[in-house]
């Protein structure tokens, strides 16, 4: 056998393997895509008589903790059923997908997100609208520890190191810096995960957090949390917003109104009873998360401060005043996203809901925070 013939046959086999490899890649890709495109929500008829909207899916913005207490109440108390749904499937989110993708691709009819993610998606051509909001102000903040390096003002931030999760939070963080005239030269940013262990062990000075979550975890670990809220420092945009496609607004308006009625009832109950919110999260919906009852009750109580304001007591939960909408557009501009109110928001549905059901407007105690 000559050496050249030997090597050539080797090469041919390898060439075949190479092709096989590419094929396998494509196959893996297609099965991934298949997983993405399966299961579309069923929609019922909206003809007269008893409404039947079938089962719809709601993409949550995070794991099943008290952040979705209103949805647990709506399920448990039968508000979804009363509104004409066979059921509402709550899809948890570990932070790796965005509600925008899920709603655009039709795996969920409604998603919970934030304008900081929705506005860029719309700019890239996603046919989405924000129709209501649970939180009147966003809960994003920097958590630092009094025992280590307390950071309570933007001025304290200079020269410090901040741990931020890559992805959506990174985008918000960069917006916060821009809104406050800071750059990455003033504040050192390092990538981190959702655990606050690196903060507690002094690896960095502040941790990108949710006001209602990590500060309470830090308290549990025996530290005194110091927070710097983004909503009070140049970035007042809403969060836990309800997003749907334009197609759903155009063709399933009744369904959306029925859904929002159930959500309002659920959240009214949830705001009134933080302890029961925590019980649902701990013992049923978030059971596999091994949540702590006391900690979840504190979170639920803190969360009320984001949901209930003088405006919501006057206009109803989930509503957005024109001032609030303008603030959102300004915040987004500060983050480098140019958009307009009518591209991002469609508040006509929630307004109609309250016009048709004025008794849903309940005055709730405004928490002092």
């Amino acid at each position, binding site marked *: 056998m000559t050496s050249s013939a030997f090597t050539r046959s080797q090469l041919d086999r390898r*060439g075949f393997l190479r092709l096989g*490899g*590419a094929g396998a890649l494509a196959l893996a*890709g297609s099965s991934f895509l298949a997983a993405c495109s399966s299961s579309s929500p069923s929609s019922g008829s909206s003809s007269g008589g008893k409404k039947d909207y079938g089962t719809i899916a709601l993409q949550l913005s995070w794991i099943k903790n008290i952040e979705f207490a209103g949805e647990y109440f709506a399920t448990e108390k039968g508000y979804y059923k009363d509104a004409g749904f066979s059921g509402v499937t709550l899809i948890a989110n570990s932070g790796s997908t965005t509600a925008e993708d899920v709603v*655009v*691709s039709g795996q969920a009819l409604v998603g919970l997100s934030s304008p900081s993610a929705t506005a*860029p998606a719309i700019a890239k051509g996603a*046919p989405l609208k924000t129709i209501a909001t649970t939180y009147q102000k966003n809960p994003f903040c920097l958590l630092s520890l009094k025992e280590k390096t307390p950071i309570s003002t933007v001025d304290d931030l200079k020269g410090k190191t901040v741990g931020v999760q890559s992805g959506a939070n*990174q985008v918000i963080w960069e917006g916060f810096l821009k809104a406050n005239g800071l750059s990455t030269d003033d504040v050192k940013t390092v*990538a981190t995960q959702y655990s606050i262990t690196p903060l507690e062990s002094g690896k960095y000075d502040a941790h990108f957090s949710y006001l209602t979550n990590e500060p309470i975890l830090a308290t549990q670990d025996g530290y005194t949390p110091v927070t710097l809220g983004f909503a009070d420092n140049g970035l007042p945009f809403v969060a836990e917003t309800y997003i749907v496609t334009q197609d759903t607004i155009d063709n399933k308006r009744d369904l959306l109104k029925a859904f929002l009625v159930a959500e309002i009832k659920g959240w009214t109950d949830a705001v009134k009873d933080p302890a029961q919110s925590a019980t649902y999260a701990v013992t049923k919906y978030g059971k596999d998360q091994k949540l702590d009852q006391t900690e979840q009750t504190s979170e639920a109580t803190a969360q009320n401060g984001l949901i209930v304001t003088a405006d919501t007591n006057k206009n109803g939960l989930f509503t957005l005043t024109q001032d609030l909408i303008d603030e959102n557009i300004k915040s987004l501009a500060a983050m480098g996203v140019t958009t307009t109110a009518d591209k991002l928001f469609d508040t006509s549905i929630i307004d109609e809901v309250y016009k048709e059901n004025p008794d849903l407007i309940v005055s709730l105690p405004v928490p002092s925070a």
Partner: protein
Amino acid sequence: MAYALRRIGVTVLTIAASLVIFGLLWQLALTLMHVNSYVGKTPLDVWDYLFVDNPMTPDQTAADNRAHLFGLLWVTLGHAALGFVFGVGASVVVAIVFALARPIEFMFMPIAMLLRTVPLLAMAPVIYLVFGNGAVTAAFIGGVVVFFPLLVNLALGFRSVGAQAVDLVRVYGGSSWTVMRKVAIPTALPHFFASMRIAVPGAITGAMLYEWLFTFQGLGAGIVTAKSQSDYPQLWTIVVFITVVSIVLYTIATIVEAAVLAKWGPDAGRR
């Protein structure tokens, strides 16, 4: 010379053919599965992202996109090289130690395999606390991905030396080290290169994992940022970049393999 040229030609053609088939299957999958065009981008969209200016976004030209992605690519290749060198170096040293002192292999090989199963994602906070988030961690993450397949293959290679060849060296008074140099290393070379072909794409995976978990740099972080900004054309282009780079590096590895084995492999000089 003519032979070498023809071989390079065949290789280039093979890569081109595999890319065309890859592109066709990609397009076919998107069409057949009815993937939403907002999320699922086609090969043509990737082409547009890289080479056609979008009139909708005048401040983001195709040239900007190319410059951005190539910038990220070099960073990722740097991290991949770090992990590759660390992983290959460590596994060669450990495999030689295993071969020279067999009991050590029996003691540590199972533990090494156990370490392999620890998910890096879950370990990320611990790795961050221990090694920080700099070059050491890049080498560590890339190394872990590269190290184990290489170690197993090399250990197998060193073990499969011919008894007669060892006897011959021994008869002439050669030491274990001489056996290693004259017999074991040439015997293990095909195993070494086989695992090298796993290690090259593995190092890139490791680099991207490191960048995603610990930094805001390179393609690993870039793909996460692109996703959170709903920049799907960029996301798919990054996937194409990684695929093409992996195929090219894999091909280079096979060419090096053929050349080295022809000169120093176990069948070298055999006609």
